[in-house]
């Protein structure tokens, strides 16, 4: 049982990683990017292509894929989101949904229906484990992912609170018009925020590929995981996302224990329970389910 809890917590690190980009973008631009999961899968496929075709190991491949994801994020904001956000709050949902369908099916067209994994390209890291006191075996990769999530969330928090660029992104998220008045380049801040979000998505995609298998249509599931973790984590801070990820993973672990097909059900049910509690305790009509306060100074 302790073993499963530890595994669950470590898996929560992955969910936090994929969720933080979603809630970050929502906080800054008030847009939920429905192509979020598909872009993570895109990154996983890019790494797979580099590894299988050009023999570039995935960790090295990140040096190519992450900058590429940043460019994609920037372009996404400049050419799609900025434009569709002008048409109201509903249009970006439709735009990003269309984008998700295009990405999924282009991946399917290119790579076929086979499930892939990056595990064969990272040597023994995929199955090596450390023995912890109490005869606990924890996978090295799971620990690396968890640590990466903590570092990324901490780094993002520091970036937002301690740097000028971070401050201008925070100002934009609070009130874009006023931020513009005091000299913040809102378009630039948004584009940079989108680029950062896509880098986190790229990293999440890499870890998805290393710890499990993926196929062209895996994006939807990842999007739901990201959304659930972000909502469970709630409106606290970026660290809330980590808690959300852990709660989601533990609920899935519990679900799998109750019923062989209960893994996903456990996660969805936990999400709905948290949603229910939040709806009936807050009573604010939930303007910002996902929104974390970026203005919080530690």
């Amino acid at each position, binding site marked *: 049982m302790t073993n499963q809890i530890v595994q669950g917590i470590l898996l929560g690190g992955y969910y936090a990683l994929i969720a933080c980009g979603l809630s970050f973008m929502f906080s800054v631009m008030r847009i939920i990017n429905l192509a979020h999961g598909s872009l993570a899968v895109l990154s996983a496929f890019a790494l797979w292509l580099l590894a299988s075709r050009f023999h570039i190991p995935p960790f090295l491949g990140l040096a190519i894929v992450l900058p590429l994801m940043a460019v994609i994020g920037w372009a996404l904001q400049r050419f799609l989101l900025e434009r569709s956000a002008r*048409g109201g709050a509903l249009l970006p949902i439709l735009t990003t949904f269309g984008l998700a369908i295009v990405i999924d099916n282009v991946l399917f067209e290119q790579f076929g229906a086979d499930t892939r994994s990056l595990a064969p390209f990272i040597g023994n890291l995929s199955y090596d484990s450390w023995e912890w006191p109490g005869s606990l075996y924890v996978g090295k990769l799971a620990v690396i992912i968890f640590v990466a999530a903590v570092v990324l969330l901490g780094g993002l928090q520091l970036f937002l609170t301690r740097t000028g660029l971070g401050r201008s992104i925070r100002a934009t998220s609070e009130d874009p018009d006023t931020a513009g008045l005091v000299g913040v380049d809102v378009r630039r801040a948004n584009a940079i925020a989108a680029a950062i979000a896509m880098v986190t998505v790229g990293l999440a995609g890499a870890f998805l590929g290393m710890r499990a298998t993926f196929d062209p249509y895996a994006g939807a599931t990842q999007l739901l995981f990201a959304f659930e973790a972000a909502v469970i984590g709630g409106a606290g801070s970026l660290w809330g996302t980590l808690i959300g990820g852990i709660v989601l993973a533990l609920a899935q672990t519990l679900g799998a224990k109750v*019923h062989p097909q209960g893994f996903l059900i456990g996660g*969805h049910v936990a999400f709905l329970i948290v949603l229910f509690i939040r709806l009936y305790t807050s009573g604010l009509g939930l303007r910002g389910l996902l929104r974390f306060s970026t203005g919080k100074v530690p």
Partner: protein
Amino acid sequence: MSAASPVIERGTAASRIAGCGVAIIILLLALAPQFLSAGAVDRMTALFIYVILAAMWNALAGFGGLVSVGQQVFFGLGAYFAIRLANAGLNPFVSLFVSAVIVGAVSWPISLFMLRLRNGEFAIGMWVIAALTHLLVNLDRLIQGETGTSLISLNVYDASTRRLTIYWLALASMTALLAVLFGLLRGSTGAAIRAIRDNEDAAASIGVRVTGTKRLLFVLAAFGIGVAGALWLATSITFQPKTYFSVQWTAYMIFIVLVGGIGTFEGAILGALIFFLIETWFGGTGVWYLIGLGATALIFSLLLPRGLWGTLEERFGWRLLSVGYRVRLPVNASDTTGGTASPAQVTTSREKA
């Protein structure tokens, strides 16, 4: 000469003609199976189902401002309950409609919950509901997981009776649902719905019952999509949870409504026709067809967010099945025909009757 007062009208001459045209078209469609091949009858049934799906999604998103990417949950449930009811011994054709009523009833508690979410959160929250429902339906032993099952009891009817009955049921369902929707949107509820879409807080402040109105729309859309799911089951007989709970159905609805014209009554019908033709011509190209659908939806939402009908309507002032009001300001009293004056249209705001 007295000051010309603006003329408020509900429709144009064109819309009165269109009303008669619709009646004639429906009559012709009802007689059509006499002249159509079996395959064509099946295709027409599919078209009617697409129109239902599109009209229901449009009612929710275009008029209610509630964009959901989880509407496949009601499509799947419509089929699932029909299987369950038929298995319990109910006549398969009757169970199609009882099933939709149950779907409507199920959507009520879901609405209590989900309608408190906004925009993207509602959209993706519905997707979670759909994913969860899919998993739960898989647990039912009758369904046998992803293997699925069939509506076996429909086999007691011979193929042509079955085909014709389903055709007429689909046509009748489509007509009835469109008529209900039209009546709803044209009445005071419709005005409330559009007021909520345009500004929820402002609508609430002038006394519109925001939650009740949204819920009505949500339940109606669930019911309609439930009918569509049950009818689809009747045409295809087999029930595989994966195909019915697929997000693809929502993708189709979004494509149809975006291309046709979101928030216009005619747009959903036009979009369904276009989708039907595209599917007929390009459906065989498989994955490129899906890429094309996604890309078209993307392009329309970026460049032509009002869709084809919305654009035509704006440009030429067309009104065929008008659910709103328009105000014509006569330029001068002698020019009563208003042929040259471009009419200022007010379709969205009106005090509650």
